[in-house]
């Protein structure tokens, strides 16, 4: 049985590779290919430009126009250009963040790209790009979330990576007794608090409950949600988080960790680069998976996926599809996600992960340490309106935990409204 599955899978892959190779040979693409991208930070920008250049070499007759738009500005511009002046390929995000555009008919159904081998290779994110039975985009990268911590501080006080909630609290108490905050966080832009909620809720009630909650199927005033907040409150009452965090962005909260005033940071892997640039060596910096809270619940993880889509108003859909196939190919994903480029995880199961210590740990964690499931992130799993209200509530809770009842009632009212 096992071997049959294996061989059929291999055949599948082989057929897929052959098919895509044939297509690459058979089709000579021509005309214009217009790409709008939000990869505006220096490293992603270089990756994007390099991808376009390599794709251009494969298709010399194709005239590719790449427009890179500032990441924040892109979020507001995308509505206009999808309707009025659609490019052939556009960056966006998976799950609920793409849903409004799919429902408005602005993203092209690209299930045909996903047919065959692709579905196997990209299985981990297929659900996040599926609406109904159709797929509306392809992933190019994702990254793990977890607790990044100062190993040297842990060593100094004889602490080890915790695995259970009790160990986590005990570690935290030791740090606090020595005048060090357990966690740094900057909640000025709200979403960082969403990360804490995701993890506390997934560990307290499990991934499935969390998914139902972000889907609007569970009440915010339920005992389960209250239990999550009760756990959160334990940390807040201890004084585990840095003070006045509502004044800082996530970058402005980094110095607390760099200066040793706070020991750890629940963050996405993108925090590693600035921490290294600030002077922390890999001996000082380490990573652990968020601890278990309710024993026995399969762990779920946050791993947001960034994606490419074809707008339904695209002019050159053939070339766009070919570009998407190129983007998701194993070789390309290995290349663009390595430490010298994006420094994140490739989605394609056949590509290889860079040697970077954090990427290796993250890859291990996501591929074998997250049996519960992989969530996108609070603001991508919940609809926009719910996400906005939710994260505002989380921030308020972190500053005034006594307002909890009021906050939960508000969130429940929003839920009744949104879904």
């Amino acid at each position: 049985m096992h071997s049959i599955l294996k061989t059929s899978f291999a055949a599948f892959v082989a057929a897929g590779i052959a098919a895509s190779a044939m297509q690459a040979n058979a089709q000579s693409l021509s005309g214009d290919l217009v790409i709008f991208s939000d990869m505006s930070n220096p490293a992603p920008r270089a990756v994007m430009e390099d991808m376009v250049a390599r794709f251009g070499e494969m298709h010399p007759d194709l005239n590719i126009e790449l427009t890179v738009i500032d990441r924040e500005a892109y979020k507001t511009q995308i509505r206009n250009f999808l309707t009025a002046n659609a490019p052939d390929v556009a960056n966006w995000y998976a799950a609920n963040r793409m849903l409004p555009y799919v429902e408005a008919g602005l993203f092209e159904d690209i299930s045909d790209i996903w047919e065959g081998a692709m579905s196997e290779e990209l299985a981990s994110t297929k659900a996040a790009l599926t609406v109904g039975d159709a797929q509306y985009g392809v992933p190019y990268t994702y990254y793990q979330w977890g607790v990044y911590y100062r190993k040297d501080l842990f060593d100094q006080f004889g602490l080890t990576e915790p695995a259970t909630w009790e160990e986590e609290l005990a570690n935290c108490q030791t740090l606090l007794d020595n005048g060090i905050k357990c966690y740094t966080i900057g909640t000025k832009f709200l979403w960082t608090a969403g990360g804490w909620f995701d993890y506390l809720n997934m560990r307290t009630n499990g991934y499935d409950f969390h998914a139902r909650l972000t889907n609007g199927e569970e009440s915010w005033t339920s005992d389960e949600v209250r239990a999550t907040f009760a756990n959160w409150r334990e940390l807040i009452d201890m004084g585990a988080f840095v003070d006045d965090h509502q004044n800082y962005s996530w970058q402005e909260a980094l110095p607390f960790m760099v200066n040793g005033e706070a020991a750890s940071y629940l963050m996405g892997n993108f925090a590693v680069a600035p921490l290294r640039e600030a002077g922390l060596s890999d001996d000082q910096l380490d990573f652990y998976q968020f601890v278990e809270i309710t024993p026995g619940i399969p762990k779920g993880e946050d791993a947001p996926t960034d994606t490419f889509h074809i707008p339904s108003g695209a002019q050159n859909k053939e070339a766009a599809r070919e570009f998407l196939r190129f983007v998701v190919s194993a070789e390309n994903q290995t290349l663009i996600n390595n430490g010298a480029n994006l420094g994140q995880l490739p989605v394609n199961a056949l590509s290889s992960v860079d040697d970077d210590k954090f990427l290796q740990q993250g890859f291990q964690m996501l591929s074998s340490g997250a049996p519960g499931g992989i969530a996108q992130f609070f603001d991508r799993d919940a609809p926009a309106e719910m996400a906005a209200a939710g994260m505002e509530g989380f921030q308020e809770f972190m500053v005034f935990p006594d307002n909890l009842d009021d906050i939960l009632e508000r969130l429940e009212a929003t839920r009744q409204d949104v879904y």
Partner: protein
Amino acid sequence: MSISADSDSQRQRSWYKRNEIAITPWLFLAPGVLFFVVYVIAPIWQSFGMSLYDWNGLGDIDTNGTYIGLENYNKLFGLNGERADRNFQISLWNNLRWLVLYLLAIPLGLFIALFLNQNVRGIRLYKSLFFFPFVISQVVVGLVFSWFYLPNNGLFTVMTGWFGIEIRGGVLGNPNTATYGIIAAGLWPQTAYCMILYLTGLNAVDPEQVEAARLDGAKGRKMLWHVILPQLKPATFIAFVVTIIGALRSFDLVSIMTGGGPFGSTRVLSYYVFEKSLSERGLQYGYAAAVAVVLFLIMLVFISYFLWTMYQDEKEARG
């Protein structure tokens, strides 16, 4: 012969020449009116229309939007026994705070203008230094003030520390103080603006009247109140208009300094409109349009007042 030639030329004068007096004002007005209609009047009607729909701003409103009548307004004000939109109420209250406190810019501006309206060597340099905050971008003002207010290291926090006052979470991190902190930042450039208006007004004060008043024994406060201030009425009017509009439009500082936070306590109506329509997580165009309509109606009160005042002045000037 000469008479007949004259009447010939009378007849030959073009239609435009004959109606020149009547038409010319309209020609002058035409570009302004055109832009006013296309970019002001039409969008106002559009927002009225949009506010009756449930629409996420994507695609076409007729196909992707649903007509829901006054439902958006019901939601805003909580009319159907529903709970009123708390965020809307916060914005409304904050707008009121802005309106009242922002008017402080007028007396402050007047005070500085009177202070600077002296003949001292290098006075122009002083004047320009006082005017400087209005020249810098609001973004920069916002950033400078957010650093000023930072907890722990911010200059403001250090200063209040001398008096033993400690604001929990810092000025901008505490929902009770954040709005006032932003208004204070906004007053800085606005005061400078009012000051320059008053300085120009003071230039136009009639020296003969001042001289006459002085001969009659007017001095100090009396002189200011009965002689100078009445002559500054046009400047005060403009300062009032500009300040009211500035207060109702207060958006940039909120956006830069707090982004509406902490937990939405510094929202104002214009920022709320942005949040619900164009921001990262706003996909409720219909709802945002309803908020925009409410903001417009509030402005309409002031607009009517300004127009009425101007009309009265015109009438007086002619009569």
